[in-house]
């Protein structure tokens, strides 16, 4: 699927002469060593700061709706950061979304039966994917009190998706309506909650104390789905684009063969989507 990146291409044309490189190395080396020296010489602990953020977080932790301080900071005290971060992810996803046409009617997940599957990976996946999904749910739930949360859980789910795609048996179509819903549901939920709590407390993203826990769980669940979908989309576009580069004429032939095959014997995974298979 991947072509080895061609590191040597145009190598001689763009490379700096050795003198420039040495000069660059020496400058950066001296600057880094200087910074390290400053760091060692001024090694005073951070007690001189006027405010101690850990103390403030500890004081307000009971009102935040989460027991884990990192989760409390991410989704309550500085939830604006997290909102914008999901926005950044969505912008990147939109930027690299495959361009193929309007809303395609193929489902998000389709099983390809003709493909040259990797039987080893496929066999392992039958055991691995359910375990990863359970593990992702655990990570999401445990994020309230221990390290974990939406991003870790989403990354696990995306990893399961990448494995499934690598096995050659499963294809993802990110132009389907389900995929678009999955990609955006995190941001939509987050913004909905942000505006919704503003009607109650008067300030955007300021949760009422008694509802903070459930609201954080709601946001995290939606964000998990979105993050998993977006990360999988990032992998998927890069992989298919690189495959297209490696052999353009034959890739086209492959695609037409794949679409012919998938239109004849596609099977929709039971849990994947409610859309009918074509």
């Amino acid at each position, binding site marked *: 699927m991947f072509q080895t990146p061609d590191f040597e291409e145009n190598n001689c044309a763009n490379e700096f002469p050795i003198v420039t490189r040495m000069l660059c190395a020496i400058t950066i080396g001296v600057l880094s060593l200087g910074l*390290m020296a400053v760091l060692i010489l001024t090694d005073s602990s951070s007690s001189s700061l006027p405010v101690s953020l850990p103390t403030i977080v500890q004081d307000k932790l009971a009102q935040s709706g989460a027991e884990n301080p*990192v989760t409390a900071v991410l989704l309550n005290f500085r939830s604006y950061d997290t909102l914008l971060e999901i926005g950044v992810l969505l912008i990147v996803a939109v930027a690299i979304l495959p361009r193929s046409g309007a809303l395609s009617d193929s489902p998000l997940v389709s099983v390809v039966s003709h493909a040259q599957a990797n039987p080893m990976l496929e066999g392992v996946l039958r055991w691995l994917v359910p375990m990863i999904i359970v593990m992702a749910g655990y990570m999401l739930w445990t994020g309230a009190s221990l390290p974990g949360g939406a991003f870790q859980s989403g990354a696990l789910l995306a990893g399961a998706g990448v494995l499934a795609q690598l096995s050659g048996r499963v294809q993802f179509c990110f132009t389907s309506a389900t995929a678009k819903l999955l990609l955006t549901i995190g941001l939509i939920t987050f913004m909905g909650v942000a505006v919704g709590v503003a009607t109650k407390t008067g300030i955007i993203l300021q949760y009422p104390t008694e509802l903070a826990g459930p609201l954080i769980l709601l946001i995290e669940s939606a964000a998990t789905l979105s993050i998993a979908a977006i990360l999988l989309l990032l992998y998927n576009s890069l992989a298919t684009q690189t495959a297209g*580069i490696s052999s353009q004429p034959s890739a086209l032939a492959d695609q037409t063969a794949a679409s012919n095959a998938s239109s004849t014997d596609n099977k929709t995974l039971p849990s994947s989507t409610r859309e009918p298979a074509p």
Partner: protein
Amino acid sequence: MTQDLLYCIASIGLFGIGLYGLIVAPHIIRKILAINIMSVGVFMLLVASASTVDSLPDPVLHAMVLTGIVVAIAGTALALFLASSVHTLGRATDEDSH
């Protein structure tokens, strides 16, 4: 010399290596990798400076690193996508001109 000071020094070293690679490396993928090494250096500095002597580590810095990692992934993916598109377009123009 405490442990977090060691991590801080190592993170400066990582940042320097990445900066050198970013300036000197000729290939775009090497440049993207170099930017990633630089960002790892920054995250390491943040995590190392989050450790406090007496109490729990500073959760604000940890949350910031978590946010930063996700944004760095998104940026890397976009950069790789653009690099790959440039590669494809360049090859297409090459074939046209020949």
